[in-house]
């Protein structure tokens, strides 16, 4: 229970930067920058997993899987897609100013809520330690920011980035909630996200060809 081997400070700092990259990925209007912010976040998550791996060697596997799926393949698909399209995001539902305020409010509220109410979310003795509390608070904050992004953005590419954030949030929480998850389960969970991103971008590419835009609000063929 000695916090020393957890590199507590490193984990704290990395966690905060992960939250900041989420906000950037959600708010930045240029898709390429948003994808960069996402990639940075993916690398930070890998770094975080490596710091936690000091206490739980199983997490080395998780870090390696995350490196390949989140930090290499997903950004590759994103950049390949954005490279073939306009870089500007379709204007979202909420303007930039109010959106930053909402995101900040969500971030602070959720961080504080989960940090203080940890016993409900994770009834384990281990999760009561400060590093794990921070980890879970960050995980749920990233999750909520991803959900916010998915719900309010019109641009299909942005919703895919939001989906990735959503998944990142859940996967981060596995460090505290499910540290003994077998490699097969981790592998399955991580692989599916990449396949989902690939398929979604493939379908969105089809949409762009047929509709001439990635604006999801223009998808009105099926209104009854």
């Amino acid at each position: 229970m000695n916090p020393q081997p957890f590199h507590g400070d490193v984990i704290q700092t990395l966690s905060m930067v992960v939250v900041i990259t989420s906000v950037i990925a959600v708010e930045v209007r240029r898709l390429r920058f948003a994808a960069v912010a996402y990639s940075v976040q993916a690398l930070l998550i890998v770094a975080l997993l490596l710091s936690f791996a000091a206490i739980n060697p199983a997490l080395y596997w998780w870090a390696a899987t995350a490196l390949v799926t989140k930090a290499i393949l997903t950004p590759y698909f994103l950049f390949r897609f954005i490279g073939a399209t306009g870089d500007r995001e379709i204007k979202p539902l909420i303007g930039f100013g109010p959106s930053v305020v909402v995101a900040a409010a969500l971030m602070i509220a959720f961080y504080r809520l989960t940090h203080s109410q940890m016993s409900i979310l994770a009834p384990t003795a281990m999760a009561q330690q400060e590093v794990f509390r921070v980890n879970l608070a960050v995980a749920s904050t990233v999750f909520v920011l991803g959900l916010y992004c998915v719900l309010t953005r019109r641009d299909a590419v942005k919703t895919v980035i939001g989906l990735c954030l959503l998944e990142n949030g859940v996967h981060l929480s596995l460090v505290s909630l499910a540290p003994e998850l077998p490699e097969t389960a981790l592998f399955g969970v991580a692989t599916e996200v990449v396949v989902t991103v690939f398929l979604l971008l493939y379908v969105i590419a089809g949409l762009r060809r047929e509709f001439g835009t990635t604006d999801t609000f223009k998808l009105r063929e099926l209104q009854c």
Partner: protein
Amino acid sequence: MSDLNATVSSSLPILAFTAPAVAGALVFLGRKLGRLYWQSFAIAGSAAVALVGVLMLPEVVAGRALVSWGEEFRVDGLSALLVLAIGLVGSLTAIYSVRYVAQPGLVSRLGGPAAERRLPVFYGLLLWFIASMAWGCVTNNIIMLYVAVEATTLASGLLVAFYWDRRALEAGYKYLMLLTIGITFALVGCVLIYASAAATGSLAGRQALLISEVRSVAPLIPARTALIAVAFLVIGFGTKAGIAPFHPWLPDAHAEAPTPISVLLSGVMIKMAAYALARTVSIFYPSLPQLTVFLVALGVFTMLLGILAALPQQDLKRLLAYSSVSQIGYVVVGVGLGTYLGCYGGLFHLLNHAFIKALLFMAVGAVIYATGVRRIADLGGLSQRMPLTAACFLVGALAIAGFPPLNGFMSKMTVYLALAQAGLWWAAVAAVLAGVLTMVVMVRAAVAVFWRAAPLDGGEKVVREVPAGMWAPMLGLAAACVVLGVFPQLAYPLLDQAAAVLATVGR
């Protein structure tokens, strides 16, 4: 109930999903070969699932669970019921599709060689879709359950968007996006269950991943954590199952997918999600009995909203899709009630609806095959030209409306009785009301399409009855609807075991 924990080691659970998965891989490998090759593998692969389902029955009915790989895969009555439904509906769909895809313009609106090129993708994904559904029903690992449910989405995503035109792409995008968001919630729920089960300290290491083990420690999990987990699971698996208000993807996907895929989506995929929901949430029935009222309310809301949305539909496939939302409400009400009678009725309706909705979608597919039209207003008077399709559709329509002596009547009656027994009269009244509305919607559609005078446009192409390869599966399903209605006791041994898995009281 005492022998619920008796297990027999067997390779059947693994075969249930590896057989179609391998067949699918072979179709992809042989994509240069002909249509005959792909279709034989599709039929063989899905028939293998049905065969495995049948082979599971003797042990399962005797109250023993089949396990393999430790307890990583575990088949009890509930799993066997789902595997059997997936296998039967899957193989009939594969047979039905042989002639359906041969009609120009149906599976690919591109026509000609382009259609032929995409056919192996169609059959390969179809087999993987069936495999992932079967996998989800046999796995005992709570995280793998999530992985399998998400795998069904991935395998079917491109099938929903198969036509690759504006409508199909929109449906495919919504399908992939909404279901992935939804299912991520389910992952949180699954992880919370695992974490809290491990934290009770009564299960060693990886035992906490096994759903069958988690059940035994559920009372030790703090109620607040359990409630949060259940909320996430209901949103997650509920989205996939088409429970209102998470259903908006369903009419789009079910209507725009090629008909054989609609059959699988409505016939078995949403059932498999309902299974995942029941399997995980029922863990907490004994410790949180107040859950049942919440689930019943959710189911009632779903069945009323679904059928009200179906009322004004002019598109036959959208009408059937909304009716599926409504019918899944009955399953949720029955299973959510948590009593033996409720679970029995809910699971019986799950099985019946798999057959009925597969039948109805196949019949609508036959109409589209013969006329190229699916708007009710543009159809009429088809009973003369297509007597078999008309008869099959009528049987399906009456069965889904709960008309005696068909199977839908038996299962709905069981749900009504279970609600009355539990004293939830408001829910029983709402369920009967939804049944009446279903009757209105379905019979009206049947009359309009098959018995009303044909609309005045003349000069139409000659409409003929569909080939035997298509009406034979429909006839089989219609026969199943009649037989299960007249002899509901045939399903008793299996349903009894399946209901006992979920039910906490009243057996």
